[in-house]
């Protein structure tokens, strides 16, 4: 679980962005996640997105809760301040941090356990406040660090590693977000960088709460008996390898526009992704809801920028705070001084 510092060898041939930084400047420590983890694909897409948007690393604040996904902020932008907080509470820390210094770019990384169970209330209220942040939910349907319990996004009837079926229906974060007024909702697949990077960049550019549900396969626990490359199968053929995790390839797929594609996950299960078409209107909430519901019935996971409303005031606009940060206001403008204290106490007599 330890993080490993990446060797930094200056390579002059790396392309530079507008502020003179290379993509390497947006990288972080070496990942300690399982090889082939979808989360690493997302981290690398975040690195590319921030590089392309040329955001200064010190102006980035990266936050997370607890879980596999929440480990990933260490793996991108080493020059940014980071906060690996407590399980489910990332949105609350982000809210206070954003309140204090709105000039930073806030990136929250969470998982389906962190966001849809223990932290569901905080996510919902961050959406309500239209907190200006990018909120990436790395969605793999299981609790990885505690070894394979169902999360609240696990599909009904899917089986755990131990073969037990999930009997409780999932929470769809996209539909939930839309229903409570999220101003930017997108879904992507970790293996499709061609789609993920533009969505991340759009989310980073959105003023308000940008919720991105990223389907991100778990190589370890999203597994079942039917799989010939299952964890179980491997362990039975290895001795004393109780911690052994079979290295797997990152799953890559490009989802064609307005078409569906079947993607085979590590477990052997097939997810059917559909990318929205060019004439899809992400600004009409009613048609978006109907579209999502129609495809949900045919078991297709719709990806793309699903809904956006750029005209909703964010937390700061609602509260008439200054354009600069609250932390930059000097103390002498905050303290009313002795005369006012004496004066206001006249009403205490």
């Amino acid at each position, binding site marked *: 679980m330890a993080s490993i510092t990446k060797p930094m060898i200056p390579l002059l041939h790396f392309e530079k962005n507008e502020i003179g930084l290379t993509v390497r400047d947006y990288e972080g420590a070496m990942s300690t996640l399982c090889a082939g983890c979808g989360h690493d694909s997302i981290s690398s897409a975040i690195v590319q997105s921030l590089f392309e948007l040329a955001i200064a690393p*010190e102006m980035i604040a990266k936050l997370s809760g607890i879980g596999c996904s929440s480990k990933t902020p260490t793996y991108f932008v080493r020059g940014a301040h980071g906060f690996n907080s*407590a399980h489910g509470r990332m949105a609350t820390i982000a809210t*206070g941090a954003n309140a204090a210094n709105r000039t930073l770019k806030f990136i929250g990384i969470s998982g389906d356990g962190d966001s849809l169970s223990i932290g569901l209330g905080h996510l919902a209220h961050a959406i309500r406040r239209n907190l200006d942040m990018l909120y990436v939910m790395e969605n793999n349907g299981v609790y990885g660090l505690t070894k394979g319990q169902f999360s609240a996004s696990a599909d009904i009837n899917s089986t755990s590693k131990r073969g037990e079926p999930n009997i409780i229906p999932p929470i769809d974060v996209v539909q939930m977000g839309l229903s409570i007024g999220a101003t930017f909702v997108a879904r992507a697949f970790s293996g499709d960088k061609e789609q993920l990077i533009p969505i991340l960049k759009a989310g980073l550019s959105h003023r308000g709460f940008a919720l991105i549900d990223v389907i991100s396969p778990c190589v370890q626990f999203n597994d079942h008996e039917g799989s010939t490359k299952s964890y179980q199968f491997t362990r039975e053929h290895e001795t004393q390898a109780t911690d052994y995790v079979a290295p797997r390839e990152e799953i890559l797929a490009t989802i064609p526009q307005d078409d569906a594609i079947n993607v085979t996950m590590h477990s052997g299960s097939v997810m059917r992704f559909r990318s929205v078409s060019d004439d899809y209107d992400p600004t009409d909430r009613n048609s978006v809801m109907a579209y999502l519901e129609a495809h949900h019935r045919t078991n297709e996971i719709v990806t793309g920028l699903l809904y956006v409303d750029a005209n909703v005031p964010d937390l700061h606009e609602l509260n008439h705070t200054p354009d600069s940060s609250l*932390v930059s206001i000097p103390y002498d403008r905050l303290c009313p001084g002795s005369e006012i204290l004496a004066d206001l106490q006249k009403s205490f007599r």
Partner: protein
Amino acid sequence: MALDIARSERTENDLPSRVNDFAIKLGNVNGTGSASANTLLMRAIFRMGIPVSGKNLFPSNIQGLPTWYEIRVNKSGYTARALDYDLMVAMNAKTYAEDIHEVRSGGYVLHDSTWPLEPELIRADVHYLEVPLTTLCIDNFSAARERVLMKNVCYAGALVAFLAIDLEIVSALLDETFQRNARLRESNQLALRLGYEYAREHYECPLPFHLEAMDSNNDKILVDGNTATALGCLYAGATVAAWYPITPSTSVMDNFTSLCRRYRREALPEPDLNGAVQYQNNYLILQAEDELAAIGMVLGANWMGARAFTSTSGPGISLMGELLGLAYYTEIPAVIIDVQRTGPSTGMPTRTQQGDILACAYASHGDTKHLLLFPANPNECFDFAVRAFDLAERFQTPVIMLSELDIGMNDWVVPTLAWDDAFVPDRGRVLDATDLKEISHFFRYADEDADFVTPRTLPGVDPKGAYFIRGSGHNKFGDYTEIPDQYQEVVDRLAKKHAAAKDHLPEPIVERRVGSRIGVVSVGSCDIAIREALELLDESGIAADFLRIRGFPFSTVVDEFLDEYELCFVIEQNRDAQLRSLLTIETSVAKEKLRSVLVYGGFPLSAKHVIDGITSQLED
């Protein structure tokens, strides 16, 4: 018949004439407007320059349940709750029996004589002051609501006559209160005169115990602790506040909000599109979804370098436990105002207690310790709130100020709050861009100072200062670790840092008496009752020294004080002797020499509790 006897004949227990030394209690029904009449009386007495206190003993309810208000007047300044009542204003028929029972022998009962009292409520040893409040109001007011509300001002008017409260002062207060509503102003003035004149016409006024103007309140104010706390947060420069509504702390944030609207709002030069004045708020107050979120927001804002706080009560402290541990371990400043109420669980939300001492001292799992401040009155609420922010940033850790319902929600007469314009906030060790240029590497938990504090950096300044906060095991470089030595190095420094803070906390207040052989230790609102009790005990030959703790970790003065005596009484308002427990854990005192006096029923402490608690154990 019985009433006539009671009214006309003096009893053997008649009270001698006393000026500026008595207690009255008012039994009301909550939600009927009695609170403003009671506050009116208290403010008038305050303006007469007489030491006074008002204790609101109210139910956790909006309307219809019994509620009481106690006013104590004491020329020597001892205004802790009194348990002997010279006068009962019985306005709640449902509690007549217990209220009339509580009046001291020879005392008085004022009641609404529109309806006669049942014979069993007639005591031969008390006087009955019969004022037909309902009849007076029906005869003089036409609106149904007014007829009910004005009964309160009407009894206030009667009390003005009975107690010799300055009528002009009361009248002026009504004018001030209803400055903008002429109709209400006139109704109130009329009701006041109705009660006043009825009393004067039917009784010998004033009663043997009554008021005479003094000049002891010239440099004093009448304020509740929550208002003073909010002022402290304003003056400390807090810009972000996050909270979840909870009695009895809600008025901290209500007050902070109105203060910010008044003193932190700046008009912008440009009007908006409709020509209206635009403004900016140099603050942001977040009503969180729960206390878990409130403390999370406070940590986020402090991480960025803002001064941020939350206000809560016991149940909120329980919920904040996890993130208080996160703040402690990752060394993020935070200010938490805990206005304590009666626990456990929901307990009695509108009743006072000191039941969160242990929960706050060690809040959160694992080895955690926090800095605590114990104000005893609104004055200290103001001062300690300001100090809390300095301490939190100096020691990069949560600071919990343990106020109490009695302090927070009752009006206290205290010296006028003072502010030194030369005050500069202590922002602690923070490296700015210039500092960072001078060092080759920044490591978050290295380079400790004499207080074991390491420098921090703020986001948005310089990539060299970037670090990764983690609640998971970390070494002094801020890197993840599971290596015993590296882990211990950091948590050992945290323990030393906590201990070092004791020299920066408010020192205990020690009051010594000639020939004393016992010590008394306490915290918070117990102060005023204990000082009165020790004066009375001294008069009866028992001299005791008094130490009031104001911060945790404990000052070495506490250790030295405990060492001096064979016997020390620890007086506190909880069942489990939490302060005593903390003393036995955190000082070298021998457990056997600490005796407890515990009062925890939910009402404020009185000197009688203290005297009885001490003398009963001395007799043993």
